[in-house]
Structure formats: structure tokens, C-alpha cells
């Protein structure tokens, strides 16, 4: 019984170790979030500049800004919504199945209306 309890509760020493690990992980994550945000602002600005300038052809601009939006989607899902963290396998299935149906839906509707 005493042995069993020893496994369930962490000693004070182990707990403080765990706390330090959490703290380091959080500080690292904080930096990653700031970098992600800076990247998203940067990508948004590029997209607006690409549209505002006449230097690039229209067809290329459309493809280009759609790619930029796709990159921002990945940043949001994996950095801001923590999809990269442990225990997100089923959420990932849920959202990517949604994205798959969404893609089919957009292509299908566009095709029907045109």
C-alpha cells in the first residue's frame, strides 16, 4: 500500500524538476508564438502588396495569395491552436476531414455555377 502511494504522488524534488521543465517548455513556446505572429503579419503584408502593385500578372497573383493563405492556415492550426501538441490525433482527423469536404464543396459549387 505504501509502495503504491509512492508511485502516485511525486516527491517535492521531482515536482520542482517537473515545474522547471514546464517553465522551459512554456518559454520556448512563447517565443515560437511570437515568431509565428510576426510571420503571419509579414505574409499578410506581402499578399496586400502583391495585389496593390501592378508588377505581377493577375493570374500569378491569385495563385500566390492563395498559397500565402494556406501557409497562414497551417500557422494558425499548428501554432495558435496547438494541433502539433500531444493528444491531438482525433482533433486532427476531425478538422482535416472537414477541410477535405470543404475543398470538395468549393470545387463542386464553383463547377456547378460556372
Amino acid at each position, binding site marked *: 500500500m505504501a509502495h503504491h502511494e509512492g508511485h502516485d504522488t511525486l516527491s517535492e524534488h521531482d515536482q520542482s524538476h517537473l515545474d522547471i521543465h*514546464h517553465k522551459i517548455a*512554456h518559454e520556448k*513556446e*512563447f517565443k515560437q*508564438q511570437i515568431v509565428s*505572429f510576426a510571420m*503571419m*503579419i509579414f505574409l*499578410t503584408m506581402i*499578399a*496586400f502588396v502583391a*495585389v*496593390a502593385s501592378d508588377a505581377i500578372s*493577375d493570374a500569378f*497573383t*491569385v495563385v500566390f*495569395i*492563395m498559397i*500565402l*493563405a494556406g501557409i*497562414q*492556415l497551417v500557422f*494558425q*492550426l499548428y501554432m*495558435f*491552436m*496547438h494541433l502539433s501538441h500531444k*493528444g491531438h490525433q*482525433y*482533433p486532427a482527423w*476531425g*478538422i*482535416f*476531414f*472537414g*477541410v477535405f*469536404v*470543404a*475543398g470538395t*464543396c*468549393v*470545387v*463542386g*459549387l*464553383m463547377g*456547378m*455555377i*460556372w
Partner: protein
Amino acid sequence: MKSNEAMTKLPANPERATLEGKNKFLGFWFFLGGETVLFASLFGVYLGLRNATNGGVTSNELFELPLVFIATMLLLSSSLTSVFATMALKTNHFKRMIGWFVVTGLLGLAFLGLEIYEFNHYVHEYGHTIQSSAWGSAFYTLVGTHGAHVFVGISWITILIVRNLRRGMDLYTAPKFYLFALYWHFIDVVWIFIFTVVYLMGKVG
């Protein structure tokens, strides 16, 4: 005072520590998958009808990029502040979390104000209404549905904060706040595609 907040120990992922929290977390992600399809249907219709202007004003004449840019910056910033709130949640700093969620809500409110101004401007200055053309219908339905989501989000976080301010952080409140942050990021994702597909592509032609 300060030690009082940090004294109470929470597990590493307090939003998923209970069965109820786990269920909410999974269910909400599936809900977001469904929301993706809802918006996809509106995007598909919009893309099909974006040139059906019925002889009225075109998207290139109507949209003003500076306004859209400011709105985008507001919503992107609110996404960052709700990330800060989530981090405060995970490190068990209740007051800090509430503070960041208040900032998030205010940025959302500013975004909504700008959108209302924009719609009002379109209707009264350009006669671009939901009835004026097929494009008008598609535009107001898509952008309006997103705006309605922003409104729901602001209402949601206001109620959450008011209701749980005195309760503090525990395994019961953590999932509630965490799910709101997920919802808010999702709204931002939708906006990324709206500013790209509706506004920027509308300017390109």
C-alpha cells in the same frame, strides 16, 4: 496575493484533465470541422457568383484595401492575444488570462465596428445591397456569416468572464476558456480566406 494564484497546482493540460474536458475538447474540434464545411459552401457560392454584378458596382470599384488591411490587423492581433490568454491558462494565471481575453474581446468589437461601417458605406454610397445582385447576396451572406461568428464570440467570452470571474481557475473553468480560444482562432482562419478570396481577389479581377 500573487502567491495565492500560483499556489494551487493544476495539471499540465488543465483543459483536458477531466472526462468532461476531454469530451468538450474533442467535440469542439469536430464542430470546427463542420463549421469549415459551412463556410466552404458559402465560399464556393461566392466564387461562382463574384462576377454576377447585375450591371451594378464591381468588386474592384467597391473594395478599399486600407480598410480591409486594418480589419485584418485587428483580427490577427486578437488571435495573438487569445494565444497569450491560453498560455496564461496553462500556467495557471487566472487574472492574466482574463486580461488577455478582455483585450481579445475589445479587438473583436473594433473589428465588428469596422465591418458595420463598411457595410453601411456600401449600401448607402454605392447601392450595393444583399438584393442588388447575385454577387451582393453571396457577399453579404459570406462576410455577414463571419461577422455573426465574431459577434457570437464576443458574447460568449463576455458571458464566460462575467460568470466565472469569482470562480477562478480550476478543472471546471479551464475547458470553457480553452474552447473559446480555439473558436476565436478558427474565426481568424476564416477571415484569412475572406480577405484573400473576397477582397484581394476582388481587386485583382
